């Protein structure tokens, strides 16, 4: 894992001191809310419906046991005993007092964490494939590059006041688990024919009120040019991105309005000035960062196969969990485990302080001290010996985190929605809970197969509804909640934006509507191997519309 050097420590400490002073002056009435608001946002402090909210960065979703324990401690000491893991691999606390934030940030700094650039019109936390370093299908671990981007973008003087927020994601695999095509910049790390590392560069993806899939503007950018090329993109954006209208200020609009060809030409022209200059990454520097992410030494544990065979016979629930939540590791004696934060009827992404502590203990004991946060709001143990899986499962079952539903319909992404969020139009959490309860039977869920359901409480799309196989968007109509359903979205290497299927559904109707969509799929699929998304892409919206609305048309 990355370790802070002296500079990092000083930088974070200095920021804690600076913001503590700003909070103190605010509480003493020396600065006004209008002066303070941008300062607090730069440090991850929002105001929500019930209280302040603190968003803490989890760079590229990687945590050590010690860091996770500190998050548990913060939940216990300063908040209400839980935290919310988000689609940007961060964690949010929903109830901190402003007066406690300096102490929280000091505690975080003691474990090399912070809340810097988790809000505001700057380059945000860089997200990465949650299986990075473990995935069998990876060209190389993308996190060293995410770390290089983090160092480069932290309080970058030129890019701290962009037209709008800016989000970068990286993956090292063909199979995209980091949703890179929905980001302002998406980077796909790969090898060329000569075995050299470089990136396919995607620009201008985004969700919100204008969902757009990113465009590939370069197929292979040699790794040493990462910063000069990203700088060129950001310069073009900083110069031409719209500042007159917040809704048109993201780079996706610039790329769209300029046209991909012309935009690429502008980037290349700018890059021409920068290329091979001081932003070129020396091989030694890449190697130095790489070294921090060196995979743990994985001792041979060949006894795993036999142990699993026996444990499977012994426990059906373990067997189901193994099939659903455990994925192949590049080392055959090992596996990567998804710890579902989506227990049936639970709040997607929430974990209690004791659960965080227990997961930290598991990671320390069995997983080389490493935990990941996935953008699907689950936790991951990236490296565990197959021989230890049963012990891990047993402990997860004790703490209520052994639900075997990874990638199934109850593995729902949901934003906080109207239960917490000041911008919301409708609730998200309760919709997720009701759907999860309706489909509680694991047998039924497995029969349905892979199905990504994503819910946002307003068009900002924090819950990724545009790219859900089934997406649900909460709107407010005549003072009441209404839920719009989109179908056919996806956030993988074939990213697509879902299509709105028809009129929305009230809170009492939405669960039934989702069940109708699912039943329609089951009726039309060619066989069990045809997934929901494939079936939708084959037949289009017609049968779903028919099933949802035909009765009405006849009645009308």
């Amino acid at each position: 894992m990355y370790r802070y050097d002296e500079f990092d420590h000083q930088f974070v400490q200095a920021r804690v001191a600076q913001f503590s002073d700003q909070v103190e002056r605010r509480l003493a009435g020396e600065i006004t809310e209008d002066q303070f608001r941008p300062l607090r946002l730069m440090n991850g402090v929002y105001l929500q419906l019930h209280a302040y909210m603190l968003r803490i960065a989890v760079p590229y979703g990687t945590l050590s046991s010690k860091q996770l324990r500190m998050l548990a401690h913060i939940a216990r000491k300063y908040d209400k005993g839980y935290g919310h893991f988000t689609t940007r691999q961060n964690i949010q606390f929903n109830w901190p007092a402003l007066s406690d934030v300096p102490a929280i940030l000091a505690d975080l700094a003691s474990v090399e964490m912070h809340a810097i650039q988790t809000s505001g019109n700057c380059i945000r936390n860089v997200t990465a494939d949650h299986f990075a370093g473990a995935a069998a299908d990876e060209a190389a671990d993308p996190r060293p590059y995410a770390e290089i981007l983090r160092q480069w973008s932290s309080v970058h003087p030129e890019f701290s006041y962009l037209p709008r927020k800016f989000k970068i994601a990286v993956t090292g695999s063909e199979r995209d688990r980091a949703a890179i095509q929905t980001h302002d910049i998406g980077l796909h790390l790969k090898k060329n024919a000569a075995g050299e590392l470089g990136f396919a560069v995607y620009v201008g993806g985004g969700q919100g009120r204008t969902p757009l899939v990113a465009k590939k503007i370069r197929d292979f950018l040699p790794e040493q040019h990462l910063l000069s090329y990203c700088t060129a993109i950001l310069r073009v954006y900083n110069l031409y991105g719209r500042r007159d209208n917040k809704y048109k200020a993201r780079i996706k609009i610039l790329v769209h309005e300029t046209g991909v060809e012309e935009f690429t030409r502008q980037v290349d022209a700018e890059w021409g000035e920068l290329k091979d200059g001081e932003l070129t990454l020396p091989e030694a520097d890449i190697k130095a960062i790489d070294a921090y992410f060196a995979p743990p030494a994985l001792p041979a544990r060949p006894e795993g196969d036999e142990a699993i065979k026996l444990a499977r016979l012994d426990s059906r629930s373990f067997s189901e969990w193994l099939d659903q939540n455990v994925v192949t590791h590049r080392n055959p004696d090992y596996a990567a485990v998804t710890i579902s934060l989506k227990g049936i009827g639970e709040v997607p992404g929430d974990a209690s302080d004791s659960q965080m502590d227990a997961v930290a203990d598991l990671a320390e004991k069995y997983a080389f001290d490493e935990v990941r946060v996935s953008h699907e709001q689950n936790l991951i143990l990236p490296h565990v010996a197959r021989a230890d899986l049963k012990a891990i499962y047993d402990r997860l079952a004790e703490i209520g985190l052994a639900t075997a539903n990874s990638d199934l319909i109850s593995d729902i992404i949901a934003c906080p929605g109207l239960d917490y969020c000041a911008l919301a139009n409708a609730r998200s959490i309760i919709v997720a809970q009701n759907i999860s309860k309706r489909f509680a039977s694991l047998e039924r869920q497995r029969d349905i197969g892979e199905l990504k359901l994503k819910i946002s409480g307003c068009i900002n799309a924090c819950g990724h509804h545009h790219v859900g196989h089934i997406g649900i968007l909460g709107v407010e109509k005549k003072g009441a909640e209404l839920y719009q359903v989109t179908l056919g979205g996806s956030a993988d290497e074939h990213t697509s934006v879902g299509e709105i299927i028809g009129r929305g559904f009230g809170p009492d109707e939405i669960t039934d509507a989702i069940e109708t969509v699912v039943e329609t799929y089951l009726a039309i699929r060619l066989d069990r191997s045809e997934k929901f998304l494939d079936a939708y892409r084959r037949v289009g919206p017609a049968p779903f519309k028919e099933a949802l609305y035909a009765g009405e048309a006849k009645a009308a």
Partner: protein
Amino acid sequence: MKILTANRLTDGEAVWYAGGAWAETIDSSELAADKAAEERLETIGAASFAANEVVDVNLIDVDVVDGAIHPLRLRERIRAAGPTNRNDLGKQARPNAA
């Protein structure tokens, strides 16, 4: 009818203006039944904001049903009670909450 609401500066707690001070629950909020009363509340809110006591000050629409104050928007009902998915959080979790 309208009432005045805000969040307290120091801890973000949702508060409502009630007879000379900010209260942590909605029940005793001062009601404004006409334009003049609304303006009076607005002035009080602006002064309290300027005095750095509260932030995000708003007048909100309410009905009074059987003597109980009932915000028209779900958003404000959730602020007054707490998250609907967990009744152990927010105002509804207080020992004296109905």
